[in-house]
């Protein structure tokens, strides 16, 4: 098993921390992981992205150009990464703010309105966990049990009371993920 994932959106949407939680969940599942962020000047007030690789073997190149799964949270990222999804792969995106929706027919597409999901959960900061929930619903890369352990590793002990809120957001995302294309 080897899954190459790109998560891309605006700085502040929690792209990097979602990637970190996914990577840590991978470690909890005894997988090899890499987490490679874009750290160029585009991060400062612009787009941010992170490539996460989960594999049951040692990972060679942390740099890839085709992805098994793309998680897309703004228009610029959709324009840039829709074409990089491998045929038969997954594209998970938040349609709010999107003017040109994904068009490919040879990939699986899932839509998640995570702003609404975060509002339902009662905290806008768990936006990225709603997205993670949608990803795990359609592409269960790691078990929920290991995601919970991963969350425990990523959230500082003094904020551990926030774990149930994050879990609720993931569950909301799982419930509201909408598959809009099957390859």
């Amino acid at each position, binding site marked *: 098993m080897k899954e190459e994932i790109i998560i891309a959106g605006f700085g502040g949407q929690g792209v990097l921390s979602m990637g970190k939680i996914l*990577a840590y969940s991978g470690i909890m599942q005894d997988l090899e992981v890499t987490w490679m*962020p874009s750290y160029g000047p585009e991060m400062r007030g612009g787009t941010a992205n992170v490539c996460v690789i989960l594999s049951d073997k040692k990972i060679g190149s942390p740099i*890839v150009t085709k992805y098994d799964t793309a998680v897309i949270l703004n228009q610029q990222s959709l324009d840039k990464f829709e074409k990089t999804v491998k045929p038969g792969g997954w594209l998970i995106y938040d349609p709010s703010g999107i003017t040109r929706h994904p068009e490919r027919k040879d990939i699986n597409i899932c839509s998640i309105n995570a702003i609404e999901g975060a509002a339902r959960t009662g905290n806008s900061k768990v936006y990225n966990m709603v997205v993670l929930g949608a990803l795990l619903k359609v592409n269960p890369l790691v078990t929920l049990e290991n995601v919970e352990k991963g969350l425990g*590793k990523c959230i500082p002990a003094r904020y551990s009371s926030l774990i149930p809120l994050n879990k609720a957001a993931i569950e909301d995302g799982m419930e509201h993920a909408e598959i809009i294309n099957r390859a």
Partner: protein
Amino acid sequence: MAEKILMKGNEAIAISAIRNGVDGYFGYPITPQSEVMETLMKEKPWETTGMVVLQAESETSSINMLYGGASCGKKVMTSSSSPGVSLMCEGISYIAGAELPCVVVDVMRGGPGLGTIQPSQSDYNQIVKGGGHGDYHNIVIAPASAQDMYDFVDWGFELAFKYRNPVVVLADGIIGQMMEKVEMHPMKPRRTAEEILRDAPWAVTGKPASRERHIITSLSLDADIQEQFNIKLKEKYAMIEANEVRFSEYMTGDAEYIFVAFGCSSRICEAVVDELRAEGIKAGLLRPITLYPFPSGEIARLAAQAKSMMSIELNLGQMVHDVRLAVNGACPVGFYGRQGGNIYTPEEIVAEFKKFNGLA
């Protein structure tokens, strides 16, 4: 089993320094390695191990703080990125001239000048060939993962004290910024005053009546004395070259085409080898782990079995000269690189490989 923690290469450097009994870190922030000092400031090791962490006013200052700390036999280190390391080069030359141990971490970015903040390997010549003035060598070790970043701090100090020589951990923006899982080894305490006297009997530790004074200097006004010192350094470097070469190989056993790449490039070249092997092309990879001393012997051995070799570097072609010297005409040597902070993809390298070998 030791706990596995997800962390950046830069964070691994900081945590390793604390856990391996480093006495002092002196630095000045610069992308892409600022997380080293950030992590140290967050961990506050001065409250636990007593390790000093200090933000100097410049890189020139931090390297001279290393000069002072190392003179006292302490385990001292700094980290920076390309432009900052250029500022340190005078100090590194003095430290090499005074035969003092220290570890300098260089997380390379694109240059020349202020350049970019993205990953690069364009300071190979600078660091491997010296950097500062005078006939000297840094021992240069090149990590390719967050675990290497963790492990090479301790290995770096081992080499630095064994040979009384500066050691440079030559990393790049990818290795510094990428998160991977890191396995922690048991804590090593900082050395006691007695242990410093034992391990660094040359150090300036306060002169008792029972011994002659120790003088730490890189100055000699007598040409004959300086020449004797240069010859002594040459003997030391010969010992380092004989004993400390380290490399790793991937699929080289029956390989007809050999890639040579260090650091992040060696990771990318593993994917290149996999792709070519899937097409039935017998490719392999040699990764120099020590850049000085360079694995010339192993490259010469592989050149005898190879149809060609290719050096893959994030620069305009620097290590390729050392590869050519080692190959010594035994097979053609090619080069492919990207510059300025751009990174090649495995596909791009495969295409360049085929062009070079007439396989396209």
